[in-house]
């Protein structure tokens, strides 16, 4: 069982950068056969509103590079002071080398720095934090930079109602540092590879390389159109997985930490959609006010950037101390998705020096 607790390590800041292009659900009216009522239903039930799209020349590496530059600048950290770079993405610039090494080069970091990609989606941010906390706890590393994000807009077919209105693009940079006296943090992680078919891009890897056949459009039973090069999601399987596994795993994490639900200030879940977040909240029997969900309606479901995105979009006031209140918060972070894979952690977050989101500037 991958369960760990760490002391003297802390998340110290995070920046999320989104592309300037906004698309609203109203612009998808043709996808729903001109049915305005259906659009209203999606807004009301799932909380879909706006999402951010990267233009063709903008990649996730660009978004994360800008996020990292802002973060380093705000925290006054020199790139040569980084001991590690972990980049969570499934939409890298190239199949090799990794985005982490490309970012290392762009930031002009020192050569005494480990850099690697983590090939996960919506669960990935918590996984990368777990690695960062482990790396710092187990040796002489002081600072690890965690990047997380995808450009899923490139992978969804615009005529697939199961995915098209749901996903957006974002990149995030988060700093994890050695901090003596930082409170305890707990992690629990898990995987169920038997569910790998329910969220998958079938073509483009070694198993099924791109071909004329993989580029052919097909229509499924619900009339959704996609190719094998697009992201496929079995929404109902993923929903069932999430409401079955996530509440149980958050309960198990809190048991492991011996912390009550009442002591947790915020439950920051992967922003899959509002319905999902609220339904996990209901099953935990926690008041929904402690579950941020507004960033979903502004960015869309932005894969591994959704947790840092939610932190900066909705919790910057309390977590930086700007809105007053206490100087330390207990925060649960919960990532779950493609794999299927999940990771949950309970962090003690002392007032952060930097927590913000910005629009990408070229």
């Amino acid at each position: 069982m991958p369960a760990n607790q760490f002391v003297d390590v802390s998340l110290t800041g995070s920046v999320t950068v989104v592309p300037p292009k906004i698309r609203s659900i109203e612009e998808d009216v043709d996808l729903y056969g001109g049915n305005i009522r259906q659009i209203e239903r999606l807004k009301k039930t799932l909380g879909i509103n706006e999402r951010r799209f990267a233009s063709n020349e903008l990649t996730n590496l660009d978004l994360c590079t800008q996020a990292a530059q802002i973060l380093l600048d705000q925290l006054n950290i020199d790139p040569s002071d980084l001991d590690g770079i972990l980049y969570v993405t499934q939409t890298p610039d190239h199949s090799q080398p990794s985005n982490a090494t490309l970012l290392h080069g762009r930031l002009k970091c020192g050569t005494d720095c480990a850099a690697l990609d983590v090939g996960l989606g919506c669960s990935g941010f918590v996984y990368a934090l777990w690695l960062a906390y482990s790396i710092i706890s187990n040796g002489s590393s002081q600072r690890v930079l965690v990047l997380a994000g995808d450009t899923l807009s490139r992978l969804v077919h615009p005529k697939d109602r199961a995915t098209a209105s749901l996903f957006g693009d974002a990149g995030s940079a988060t700093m994890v540092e050695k901090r003596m006296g930082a409170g305890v943090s707990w992690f629990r992680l898990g995987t169920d590879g038997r569910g790998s078919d329910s969220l998958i891009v079938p073509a483009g890897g070694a198993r099924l390389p791109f071909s004329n056949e993989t580029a052919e459009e097909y229509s499924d039973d619900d009339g959704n159109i996609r190719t094998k090069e697009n992201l496929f999601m079995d929404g109902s399987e993923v929903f069932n997985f999430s409401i079955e596994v996530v509440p149980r795993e958050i309960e198990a994490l809190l048991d492991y930490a011996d912390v009550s639900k009442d002591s947790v200030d915020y439950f920051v879940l992967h922003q899959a959609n509002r319905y999902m977040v609220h339904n996990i909240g209901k099953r935990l029997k926690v008041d929904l006010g402690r579950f941020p969900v507004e960033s979903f309606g502004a960015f869309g479901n932005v894969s591994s950037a959704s947790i840092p995105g939610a932190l900066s979009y909705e919790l910057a006031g309390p977590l930086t101390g700007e809105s007053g209140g206490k100087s330390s918060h207990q925060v649960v972070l919960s990532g779950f998705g493609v794999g299927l894979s999940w990771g949950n952690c309970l962090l003690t977050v002392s007032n952060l020096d930097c927590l913000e989101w910005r629009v990408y500037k070229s």
Partner: protein
Amino acid sequence: MEFNRFIQQFEESLDGLETGSLTGTTAFKGLKEWDSLAILTLTDTIDLEYGVLLKKTEIESCDTVQSLFDLIQSKV
């Protein structure tokens, strides 16, 4: 499980459906309100009310409201 209460919950899950329009013999998959969002809402309601988490394929294996009720009852 009470059948009338189940019918009421089913009707509430299908957005736009009038109260009293469902009976045990209704072939719900033919209703114009039946779509993926309705399946999601109904799955959620059944899980919260009866603690039974049904797969989409299980729900769609039922032809009538009564047969879905029977399926849930066999799993409670």
